[in-house]
């Protein structure tokens, strides 16, 4: 068997980097090329060439890697798309952790809202703009639910606090359930409980939570400017949490980019040419 040749191996690396097609077909082309080049190298050495010269001659005979790959890839059967159910499942598995984190973030925003209520009061958190009037039937309903409330407005605030926070806590619990199901699934497959998302998914998460931050902050600002601060806290509490999640995903993305090894030493990240 012919000994390893760095020149041929480097050529095979270049060829692999340029071949586009179904994985098994690419592997076959690469295996055949390897056998061909080493057979030609052996022939060259048998004719009296130095080993490296024989390797260079074999590559010269075979043709430039990019051109060979282009010719092969043009005629190769296209890489088949995965079946629709598999694509949907794969997409769902990418989105599910984001959904779980998003729901947990809503739950956490409920805790933040609770803290802000304690600090700045119910009016800042849930009150409607000044001058808002309520129907008698609504007032009657809220007063029946909160009999200790002195006025219709305070009964409304108590009800808003209860509804608003309960809904957020429920979302948080649902998010924890989603993440737990994913963790159990990963454990059953003997995978690490937590795996970093793909860079693309992480970037999507950054975009989604940044957009949420901007939208919620805008609503909070609007409540402060137009409604004298009434109800601004409900938006502000959510905006703070969305911002924290966006920053966390941003840092995770930067870490993943710096962690990715260069395929070719001395070339930039992912330097496949």
């Amino acid at each position, binding site marked *: 068997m012919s000994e390893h040749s760095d020149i041929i191996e480097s050529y095979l690396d270049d060829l692999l980097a340029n071949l586009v097609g179904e994985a098994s077909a690419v592997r076959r082309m690469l295996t*055949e090329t390897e056998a*061909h080049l080493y057979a030609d190298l052996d022939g060259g050495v048998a004719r009296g060439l130095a080993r490296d010269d024989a390797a260079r001659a074999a590559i010269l005979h075979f043709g430039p890697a990019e051109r060979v790959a282009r010719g092969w890839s043009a005629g190769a059967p296209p890489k088949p798309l995965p079946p629709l159910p598999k694509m949907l499942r794969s997409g769902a598995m990418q989105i599910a952790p984001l959904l779980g984190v998003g729901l947990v973030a809503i739950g956490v925003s409920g805790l933040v809202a609770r803290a802000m209520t304690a600090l700045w009061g119910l009016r800042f958190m849930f009150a409607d703009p000044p001058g808002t009037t309520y129907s008698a039937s609504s007032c009657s309903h809220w007063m029946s639910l909160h009999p200790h409330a002195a006025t219709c407005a305070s009964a409304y605030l108590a009800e808003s606090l209860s509804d608003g926070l309960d809904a957020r806590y429920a979302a948080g619990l649902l998010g924890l359930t989603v993440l737990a199901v994913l963790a159990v699934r990963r454990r059953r497959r003997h995978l690490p409980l937590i795996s970093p998302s793909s860079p693309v998914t992480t970037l999507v998460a950054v975009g989604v939570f940044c957009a949420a931050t901007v939208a919620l902050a805008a609503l909070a600002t609007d409540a402060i400017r137009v409604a004298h601060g009434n109800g601004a806290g409900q938006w502000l509490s959510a905006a703070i949490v969305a911002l924290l999640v966006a920053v966390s995903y941003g840092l995770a993305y930067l870490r993943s980019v710096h962690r990715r090894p260069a395929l070719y030493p001395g070339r930039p990240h992912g330097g496949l040419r």
Partner: protein
Amino acid sequence: MLGMGNEPLKGHLDLLLLQVLDTEPAHGYQVVCQLRDRSNGAFALAEGTVYPALHRLERQGLLASDWDDNGARRRRVYRLTREGRNSLHARRAEWTEFAAGVSTVLGVTV
């Protein structure tokens, strides 16, 4: 003899590959060597172009292939199928007719 290069060969590569494999099954490197030897070095084509052609002929059902794991390196050995042999006979007849016509026009005796 000077190598002819790729361009004039492109239209006839399939016929030449089928003809080489009509003799006996062979792997890619052997096919290239036989092409070169049988043409006295005239058909010194870029060897990397042979594999896409072999793969295409196999997809068309004219060739079949199997891995040969007996040697030092794994090789794919190609052989002609029944359809491949029929196709070879048809293409060879076309070529003979075409070459005879061209020769007649040129006043060349082959």
